[in-house]
């Protein structure tokens, strides 16, 4: 205990260089834990985007592409599926539920997704969460729309507001479906998934706005919103669909059956598997980031070692005095280890404090700009291992100046003449 007191007071005596070393350790710990936190939370957010959906089916493309456009609304489909084919598969006896998805339109930068009311029943995210309405109700009429939380927030839309959808993904005045406005009947609660940034309408609504369009351009034949309503509006094609099975044992068989469908080239993917493989591709990048952060921590620790080594000469006297009053030579080693421990522990605590402060400050900003919701959690076991490893490494490094000082104090004896 007295040794700890000596170590503390001695360190305080050199507080400028010690606190600089501590600060550099704090920054590297912050970086390492920060990268680790963001990577884990991004993965959680990502993996949580869709759950309890057994298969996603679309026109044949790569599994990752299908996942990206159907769930993340990134990129677009290469081809559509005919609605008849969808109904055929949906009626298979293994299929418990199915939800069609029709993409291709947008509203002021937000994707529009046509679907049916089953979407609200079966879509799950973050394991078991279903979509909840913050205000209003699910669409019933052809020209009803339900908007995601971010859409309502960033455009300031109240219930009952009328919106105009645009054809395609780029919003240009020339391709607006201005003659068939939609009324917002529901606003969803925040989900931290791409749904927040989506406008949901019925398949019939999608059908209605395209009824007088051909090959992506408006035909000369104009059909009013009112007239369209009476035209049956049976969808002809959809972009993709999600389905759930009764018994998961039948899943592989069903997937194979869909993939080998004779009349239409289809692709059925298990979202979990594809999410994992997609994450793995990005995981390489994640490893590089972690490696860079680890190197920064190592640099911080070497900085600490340098700080300890430069004090060796000025502390020669101190060690001789301690030896004269009864400190053993190994106490000298312990003093250096204690000092390193002190610096790294102080640095780690400071780093963790900054990390949490930054999370609190950055949480709304990151959620808004990147759709990544950081939940503020305790450090996990892996992060505690990282901290302990840093402490251990610091102690090991401190043995270098410790042993030099030990050797010197043996040589110097009591009578150092400096």
């Amino acid at each position, binding site marked *: 205990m*007295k040794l700890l007191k*000596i170590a503390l*007071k*001695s360190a*305080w*005596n050199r507080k400028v260089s010690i606190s600089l070393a501590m600060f550099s350790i704090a920054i590297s710990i912050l970086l390492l834990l920060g990268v680790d936190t963001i990577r884990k939370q991004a993965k959680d957010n990502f993996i949580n985007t869709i759950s309890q959906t057994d298969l996603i089916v679309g026109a044949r493309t790569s599994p990752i592409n299908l996942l990206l456009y159907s769930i993340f609304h990134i990129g677009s489909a290469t081809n559509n599926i005919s609605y008849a084919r969808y109904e055929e598969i949906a009626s298979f006896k293994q299929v418990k539920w199915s939800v069609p998805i029709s993409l291709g339109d947008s509203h002021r930068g937000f994707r529009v997704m046509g679907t049916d009311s089953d979407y609200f029943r079966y879509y799950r995210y973050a394991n078991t969460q279903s979509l909840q309405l913050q205000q209003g109700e699910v669409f019933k009429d052809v020209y009803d729309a339900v908007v995601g939380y971010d859409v309502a927030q960033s455009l300031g839309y109240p219930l009952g507001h009328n919106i105009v959808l645009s054809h395609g993904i780029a919003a240009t005045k020339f391709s607006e479906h201005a003659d068939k406005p939609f009324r917002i009947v529901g606003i969803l609660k925040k989900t931290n998934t791409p749904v927040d940034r989506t406008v949901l309408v019925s398949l019939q609504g999608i059908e209605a706005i395209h009824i007088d369009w051909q090959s992506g351009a408006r035909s000369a034949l104009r059909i009013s919103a009112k007239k369209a309503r009476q035209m049956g509006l049976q969808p002809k094609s959809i972009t993709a669909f999600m389905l759930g099975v009764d018994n998961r044992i039948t899943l592989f068989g069903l997937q194979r059956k869909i993939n080998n469908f004779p009349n239409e080239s289809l692709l059925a993917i298990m979202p979990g598997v594809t999410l994992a493989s997609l994450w793995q591709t990005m995981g390489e990048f994640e490893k590089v980031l972690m490696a860079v952060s680890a190197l920064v921590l190592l640099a911080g620790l070497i900085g600490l070692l340098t700080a300890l080594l430069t004090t060796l000469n000025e502390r020669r*006297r*101190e060690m*001789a*005095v*301690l*030896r*004269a*009053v*009864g*400190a*053993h*030579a*190994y106490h000298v080693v312990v003093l250096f280890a204690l000092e390193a421990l002190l610096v790294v522990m102080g640095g780690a605590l400071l780093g963790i404090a900054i990390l949490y402060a930054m999370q609190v400050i950055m949480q709304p900003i990151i959620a808004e700009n990147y759709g990544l919701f950081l939940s503020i959690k305790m450090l996990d076991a892996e992060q505690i291992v990282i901290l302990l490893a840093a402490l251990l490494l610091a102690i090991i490094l401190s043995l270098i100046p410790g042993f030099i000082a030990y050797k010197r104090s043996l040589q110097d*004896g*009591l*009578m150092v*003449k*400096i």
Partner: protein
Amino acid sequence: MTKPVIQLSNIRFRYSEQDQDVLDIADLQVYQGEHLFIQGASGRGKTTLLNIITGINPPYTGQVQVLDTPLQTLSSIQSDQFRVDHLGIIFQQFNLLPYLSLLENVQLPCWFSSKRRTQAVDVEQSSTDLLTQLRIPERLFNKPASALSVGQQQRVAVARALIGKPAIIIADEPTSALDTDNRKRFLDLLFSQADKQNSTVVFVSHDQYIAQHFSRVIDISDINQAINHTATVS
């Protein structure tokens, strides 16, 4: 005559990188309660002799007995412990840890030695008493040691050497940084305190003017055969 507290017989010492002995002493005995002054010019092995008596550097041959304990039988950790238990040490200068207060500096040996702690009875009381007797103003007691003048620092070093009543006080030129007036006063304080607790004083210095204050004076050249040997060879 009282019994010897330090006995050296036929010791020879050289540093590992040297091929000649720096110390070769056939016989040296220091008696209980003595004030022994070992004088000699620099480089004659005075400090080396102190390193041998304090068990820091063991001689490669010969016997060193301190307080009936043959030092060569002690392990390095035992000899560190023996040193703090029985010896109070004062350096030429820079005796104190600048970041500790005066009281903490004085109490340092008691942190490492339970024997000194027990002999001090009340460490806190004992350290303030010693500082008071050595005429350190009380307002400085809790100040860091770096705030003191050299003369004050040397007196605090004496207090530290004396606390817990060690049997022997070893001093390596503690007066060389002091002026003549302070030197005399320093020695008076050292002797009176040492006598009070019946400690033996072994004091080395090149300064022969202070020799008159000691009960026994030895010239290192007279006992260190290594110097004479080197002299005759060269």
